[in-house]
């Protein structure tokens, strides 16, 4: 078996998982995979920086230019570095900046430091009380170990449409606070995502906080995610936030995950629902409007058409649950 040779040979070099990868994809020639650069390896060399303040991080970014990458929780970047899909010459670890941590109320907003982890979102009493949808979404990301390190800031700033938090931020009408060489500015989440890994952040800028307006008490909410298994990205997912008055929808916002090259804000679908009692016919029209704006890629999660339909199914389920919650249910 040629694969076995690769196993023993790989023991001599600094760990590389030719053996692991060959075991995962049986029948695939490990040498060919390696040549294509798809086998996990040791990351390329880099210099490590650990600034103590946002100003210091911004100054480092300015000095290092495109050769400097910010390191948050590392659970997107480190795997990419192991595959040599990312080979930054310098990593700027944000973990030593105390100002980037924490969850606090500020007037009618909740402000979450960019380096706050998914785990910290899940156990936050303030969020459970004011915006439980955040924890509900966090709890569906990856697995416990990833959530201990993965951060909200990294999740939203990376620009990966497969991440769950971007669509949630569109749904919640969040604002991103960034610091850069020209000072601080705020960017609305709804204008932030421009395409695959393309965002409104400019090079040299650091995301420092996520500001979310607290929805009205008694609001209905849900994040429904279809995934093949724990740890997988969504086949499709939908975030819903709504308020009702006298049994009718007064406000509604919808975000969709991983069904286009960016997270989607399903504005038209939400408008269709406003004023309705979320009756079956209206929900059906809204679902159709949401499906119409999707443009998913075909991948191992299924054909494009299937993923579009699953986005519709997730939205219908999320609306159902949001409705029952708005009426005081679970």
């Amino acid at each position, binding site marked *: 078996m040629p694969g076995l040779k690769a196993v023993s040979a790989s023991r001599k070099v*600094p*760990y590389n*998982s030719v053996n*692991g990868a060959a075991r*995962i994809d049986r029948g695939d020639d490990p040498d060919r995979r390696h040549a294509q650069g798809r086998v*996990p390896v*040791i*990351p*390329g*060399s*880099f*210099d*490590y920086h*650990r600034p103590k303040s946002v100003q210091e991080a911004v100054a480092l970014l300015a000095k290092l230019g495109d050769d400097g990458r910010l*390191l948050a929780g*590392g*659970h997107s970047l*480190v*795997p990419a*570095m*192991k595959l040599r899909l990312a080979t930054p010459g310098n*990593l700027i*670890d944000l*973990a030593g900046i105390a100002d980037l941590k924490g969850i606090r109320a500020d007037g009618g907003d909740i402000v979450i430091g960019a380096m706050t982890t998914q*785990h910290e979102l899940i156990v936050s009493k303030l969020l459970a009380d004011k915006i439980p949808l955040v924890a509900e979404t966090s709890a569906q990301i*990856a*697995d*416990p*170990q*990833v959530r*201990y*390190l993965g951060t909200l800031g990294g999740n939203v700033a990376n620009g990966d449409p497969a991440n769950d938090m971007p669509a949630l931020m569109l749904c919640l009408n969040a604002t991103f606070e960034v610091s850069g060489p020209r000072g601080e500015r705020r960017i609305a989440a709804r204008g932030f995502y421009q395409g695959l890994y393309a965002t409104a952040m400019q090079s040299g800028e650091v995301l420092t906080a996520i500001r979310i307006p607290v929805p009205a008490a008694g609001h209905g909410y849900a994040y429904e995610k279809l995934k093949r298994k*724990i*740890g997988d990205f969504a086949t499709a997912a939908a975030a819903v936030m709504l308020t009702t008055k006298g049994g009718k929808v007064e406000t509604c916002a919808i975000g969709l995950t991983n069904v286009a090259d960016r997270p989607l804000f399903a504005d038209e679908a939400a408008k269709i629902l406003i004023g309705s009692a979320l009756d079956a016919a209206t929900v059906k029209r809204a679902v159709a409007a949401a499906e119409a704006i999707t443009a998913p890629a075909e991948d191992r999660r299924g054909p494009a058409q299937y993923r579009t339909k699953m986005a519709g199914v997730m939205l219908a389920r999320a609306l159902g649950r949001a409705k029952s919650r708005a009426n005081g249910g679970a």
Partner: protein
Amino acid sequence: MAKSQVAMKINGKTVEALVEPRTLLIHFLRDQLNITGPHIGCETSHCGACTVDLDGKSVKSCTVFAVQANGSDIVTIEGIANPDGTLHALQEGFRQMHGLQCGFCTPGMITRAYRLLQENNNPTEAEIRYGISGNLCRCTGYQNIVKAIQYAAAKLNGVPFQEAAE
């Protein structure tokens, strides 16, 4: 690229070393320190065999650079047993309930369950399954791993372990 000086506490002992920034924590532990309890399973952040406890968090040490762990307090499977050398309740549970077959995932499973029980000392079966969902086992079907953790929770709470009826 310049090597970095790191210092961290591992299983109660302070360790100082020079590491390349790109050295992953799992390789630092296994290759430089000969702490080989945490295993390398997939090296792609999926399987959880490399799980260690870092400052009270379960992390996959294949997805953390050793330099990121500078100044931290780490517990690996080597540090789980009681100070007098007797088995920790989790280790005992895995033995009593046959919570392993090949044993490859076991260090990660126990290290993860160790943190889970610190955060929730009386988890339901569903909470255990959700809590260990970042750890893959290809032998047991998880049934006995769940029982082993239930056994440990009962023992740590000083109550008799009642196996649920099949």
